[in-house]
């Protein structure tokens, strides 16, 4: 086994040298459109998950329709989230409570 000499193990790490030892990885970036699409997808999924939690804990609440285009295992064509879906959500009381009751930040 080739051992790294002790003087090299204690050598300070030079980031410039480290960066040169590998090819530059480029600077890939998500377009703003794509970023927005992924953001809205995430927020929709969070709303779905909190809705599931609310329906589990509240026997009287309706379970709500499954999200648009939901096909397990398929890459269903994405459609813009209807603003009506967002508005209907805002009418429901949030299952989470923020700030927590009694906290200094209670609005």
């Amino acid at each position, binding site marked *: 086994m080739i051992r790294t000499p002790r003087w090299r193990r204690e050598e300070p790490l030079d980031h410039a040298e480290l*960066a040169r030892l590998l090819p*530059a990885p480029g600077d*890939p970036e998500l377009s703003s459109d794509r970023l927005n699409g992924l953001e809205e997808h995430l927020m929709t999924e969070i709303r779905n998950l909190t809705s599931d939690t609310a329906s589990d804990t509240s026997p009287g609440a309706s379970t709500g329709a499954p999200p648009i285009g939901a096909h397990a*295992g398929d890459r269903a064509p994405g459609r813009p989230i209807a603003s009506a879906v967002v508005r209907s959500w805002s009418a429901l009381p949030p299952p989470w409570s923020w700030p927590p009751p009694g906290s200094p930040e209670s609005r």
Partner: protein
Amino acid sequence: MRVTGTLQGGRTSQGVSYSMHARIRAGDPDAFRELFRDHAQLVFRHAVRTAGDLSAAEDVVSLTFLEAWRLRGKLRDEGESPRPWLMGIAVNVLRNTGRAARRHERALARVPLRDVLPDFADELVGRIADSGELTAAKRALGKLRRAEREVFALCMWSGLGYAEAAEALDVPVGIVRSRLSRARARLRKLTDSELRRRGDGTEPGGSGGQVQGGRTAAARSNEERTR
């Protein structure tokens, strides 16, 4: 704005950041939107550079934030930013993308499809250039062991400090430094070998016997004409 609870120290900047940590733990959707806007590009770049695949990297972004939602209760009140915690989740997703994808299969199926073709030619050229760079970087990164690769990518390419990388990987800071040091040693050795191989001309050639330059040059006299 201060959050009461098990905080250490009383610095104002820590108070503001712990509020964000607490909001994430509490499942505040606005906090998650903020988390996404602040860090999605970082996660994407890290995923692309590590995996070398633009399309897979987008899935990693979605899976990372879905996992962050699932694991939000585990975010501790440490550090000024949830970035190390989030990057730790990204690293775990990259280690086993299949498992994360199965866990969030339905959500992943609902991700809006990307445009297959870019709208503009320069974007296409940019994608091709990125693809070449990424392939080369990924191939080179592949020469390191996984532990060294992760530390290298986090510290050198994604800009995390040693303490942040340690938090992301859940290892002591000294381990981060030693892994980087080993990565450096391995890369130096590979670079030295490559330079020696090119320098002494012992590079293995193609099939023997073929004269370079084509039939015309081969047919001419061997008399030296230029010096």
